[in-house]
């Protein structure tokens, strides 16, 4: 191959895709092609720097928000009787709204806190992204060999040099809970990913603790009832595009990683899969929920009901029910020699605890037995 022929592969490589051995050999040995690859990387950095400098400017106005379906002209020109006290209250509300809008503009573009939660006992990790005034909270439930750990993290305040966190943790002890009991409900931990009510219920009786986290360091968070969770993170001015930084781009051969994934069936885009995670276990696996098609469990070794597919860096390809599927991930799905086998199981439905309208999301990472268990809950 010559440089001209290899050029598209340089772009593909920059995109994180795998390229043919022949193209890879050429790029490895050709200084011009390597320079092209480096230029692409530098251009990306320069563009992001350009965006960072431009983002200082706060948008100057909010759009007007007329009520949907309302005909404004007759409403605005119609005469209505308004009691004086109501008129006074209306003016007060308008003043309050003005102050509120001013405050909102001043707060525009808050800092982002991206962090990785890691259970060192199981090697399971997830990435989370939150803001100080964001109602979303980073959460993590890790199913280990002896116990399950749950953690919920909220950012009270985000600065460049310190992030104030409020953390709730708890342990789910092993053993069969009595069906229908409070412990049983708590043990339905997958509800944490399905509904806010589920999370609230699980962490209802835990004590919130505050931590001052210095970005770049590792914070060891003791878990009520035993165990610990490691938190590492960084503060960003702009919303980071994905959490690849927090997952190995060169995973080990017995490790699986999924971040910023999307599933395609034939030429049909089935959806983006939210959430990121990694696992290193006896048979490392992850499960994703992609309604209305169903739920898929991917594992590195064969397991009952699974079909054989192929994984090659950020792509996993498999055939099922007469369709060809491809799962794309922003980072390599596993390590070792590529392409290699991957085993895929499809369930008709997402975990029942996720309710009738489940999101496109990871529902479990860990050993395949844990992930299949999560699929049934």
């Amino acid at each position, binding site marked *: 191959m010559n440089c001209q022929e290899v050029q598209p592969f340089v772009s593909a490589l920059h995109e994180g895709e795998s390229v043919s051995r022949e193209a890879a050999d050429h790029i490895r040995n050709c200084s011009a092609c390597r320079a092209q690859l480096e230029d692409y990387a530098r251009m990306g950095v320069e563009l992001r720097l350009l965006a960072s400098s*431009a983002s200082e400017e706060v948008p100057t106005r909010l759009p007007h928000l007329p009520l949907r379906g309302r005909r404004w002209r007759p409403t605005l020109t119609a005469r209505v009787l308004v009691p004086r006290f109501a008129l006074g209250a209306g003016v007060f509300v308008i003043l309050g709204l003005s102050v509120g809008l001013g405050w909102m503009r001043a707060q525009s573009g808050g800092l982002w806190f991206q962090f990785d939660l890691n259970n060192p006992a199981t090697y399971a990790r997830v990435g989370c992204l*939150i803001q100080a005034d964001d109602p979303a909270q980073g959460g993590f439930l890790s199913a280990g060999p002896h116990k399950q750990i749950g953690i919920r993290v909220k950012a009270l305040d985000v600065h460049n040099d310190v992030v104030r966190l409020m953390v709730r943790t708890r342990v789910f002890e092993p053993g069969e809970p009595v069906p229908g009991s409070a412990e049983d409900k708590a043990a339905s931990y997958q509800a944490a990913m399905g509904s*806010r009510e589920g999370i609230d219920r699980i962490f209802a009786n835990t004590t919130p603790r505050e931590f001052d986290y210095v970005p770049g360091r590792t914070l060891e968070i003791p878990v009520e009832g035993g165990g610990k969770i490691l938190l590492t993170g960084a503060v960003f001015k702009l919303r980071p595009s994905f959490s690849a930084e927090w997952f190995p781009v060169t995973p080990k051969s017995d490790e699986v990683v999924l971040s910023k994934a999307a599933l395609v069936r034939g030429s049909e885009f089935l959806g983006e899969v*939210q959430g990121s995670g990694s696992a290193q276990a006896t048979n490392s696996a992850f499960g994703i929920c992609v309604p209305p098609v169903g739920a898929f469990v991917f594992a590195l070794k064969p397991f009952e009901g699974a079909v054989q597919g192929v994984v090659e860096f950020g792509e996993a390809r498999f055939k099922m029910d007469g369709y060809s599927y491809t799962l794309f991930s922003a980072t390599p799905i596993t390590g070792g020699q590529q392409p290699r086998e991957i085993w895929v199981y499809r369930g008709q439905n997402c975990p029942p605890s996720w309710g009738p309208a489940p999101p496109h999301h990871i529902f479990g990472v860990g050993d395949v037995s844990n992930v299949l268990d999560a699929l049934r809950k």
Partner: protein
Amino acid sequence: MATVEHEQELWERLRRGDTEAFAGFYRQHATHLQGFLRHYLGDAKAAEDVAQEAFLQLWRHPNGFNPARATLKAYLFGIAAKRAADWWRRCAREERAVASPQAGFRTDAATLMEDALARLEPEPRSLLWLREVEGYSCAELAVMLDIPPGTVKSRLFAAREQLRRIWRGEKPQEES
């Protein structure tokens, strides 16, 4: 994981006409969107107008969004990209002169990149911005721009090469 939940909840609130939820969404994305449009259109005022139009369209027609296909933010950027393309078609001749890089002494890397970017055609410029700055994947861009993923990849390659040539050509000789 809670972010997705938040996204679903946000969409439901927008559909119900929740202005507070909309204001939050605006606050979160307006700066990014205007940054993207400013580089797409080369005109700060037009960028502001198109951004407002995009937000208003989302507000007025939230059911145009399909959560199975993209995120709300991607949907918003898709609306904005289409409106910006319309704007460009209407105003290209007059605005192109404004958007052209200014001749003169350039001192830093940011200026070089800004000028190089301004010399790209609008479509490759917006595609590169959405990929490199906003971080959308090829699959997401395909949905957002309504073109096949393979076309996204080939256009990205062409855009990168165009930008690279301009950028390299403008770079001063480095001291050895």
